């Protein structure tokens, strides 16, 4: 069992498991007052789970009057994709016309899979995972919007734990030095600790601020 999973099967399973959450999104979006076209357009065009759930969440509780707040929340929650895009553009190299496509596929999952692979497989990991998540996320959004919650709750199948476990398995190989391990450990505790006091999505962003502070701490070398 020492053999690592191939990049194709990792990408496929991440895409499929993430995609299943599209059912929840589709169903919730309908419940928030969006029609099926609007729901599907959000998954196609916004394509960023956190931002999408925030958008429909604000609309669901505030109605059309809350539209500016909904836009602002979605925008704020999208910041982390910008950081991922910086990392990914150096890995993906020159892209030409595919650059805007790669940008749209730059999300938590595609970045995490790419970074967990050896340099030869990073590009394949990004495109495959981004492609599979896009495919399944949009297909499942349609299903969820069509059938509603009757399909079932992803957490009944343990998918909520699977999503967290996937990120654990993807981030672990990256923790090659003590500063990275320290940052990872602190971010997990910190984001959970401040969650009750700030808006949804903000804890993860504040983890990035934590990373900058840790970055500024000089590493003392033993003489």
């Amino acid at each position, binding site marked *: 069992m020492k053999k690592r*999973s191939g990049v194709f*099967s990792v990408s496929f*399973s991440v895409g499929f*498991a993430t995609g299943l959450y599209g059912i929840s999104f589709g169903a919730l979006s309908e419940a928030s007052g969006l029609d099926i076209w*609007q729901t599907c357009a*959000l998954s196609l*065009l916004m394509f960023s789970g956190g*931002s999408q759930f925030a*958008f429909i969440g604000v609309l669901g509780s505030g109605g059309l009057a809350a*539209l*500016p707040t*909904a*836009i602002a929340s*979605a925008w704020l*929650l*999208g910041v982390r*994709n*910008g*950081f*991922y*895009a*910086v*990392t990914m*553009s150096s890995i993906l190299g020159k892209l030409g016309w595919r*650059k*805007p496509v*790669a*940008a*749209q596929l730059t999300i938590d999952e595609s970045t*995490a899979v790419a*970074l967990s692979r050896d340099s030869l497989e990073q590009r394949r990991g990004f495109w495959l995972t981004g492609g599979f998540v896009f495919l399944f996320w949009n297909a499942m959004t349609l299903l969820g919007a069509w059938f509603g919650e009757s399909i079932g709750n992803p957490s009944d*199948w*343990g998918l*909520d*734990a*699977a999503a*967290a*476990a*996937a*990120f*654990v*398995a*993807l*981030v672990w190989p990256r923790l090659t030095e003590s*500063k990275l391990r320290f940052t990872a450990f602190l*971010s*997990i505790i910190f*984001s*959970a*600790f401040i*969650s009750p006091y700030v808006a949804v999505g903000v*804890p*993860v962003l*504040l*983890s*990035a601020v*934590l*990373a*900058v502070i840790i*970055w500024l701490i000089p590493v003392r070398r033993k003489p």
Partner: protein
Amino acid sequence: MTLWTGLLLASLAVYSWKFIGSLVPSKALDHPRMAQLVSLITVALMSGLIGIQTLITDRQVELDSRLPAVLVAIALTVMRLPFIFVVAVAALVAAGLRFLLGWP
């Protein structure tokens, strides 16, 4: 503003981060110090996500079946077991605890 206008504006706003980030020249990461910063931020964002996905429900800390499942996943990852196996066992642990023991 109609819902459609708002939806398109919000999508464009979310896309703008992705696209602007991709325009940062990769030369900026050539310096080891900058590369370290980007790598620290990426690890922090993903670890923050792990914390939220494992411990938080509706902005409150909720210790439920996810925590044992993720702890098992950490153990299996340390043992260098394949990715698919780690994720499948985590799902099984959480679903099993809920279904058999009625845990939240």
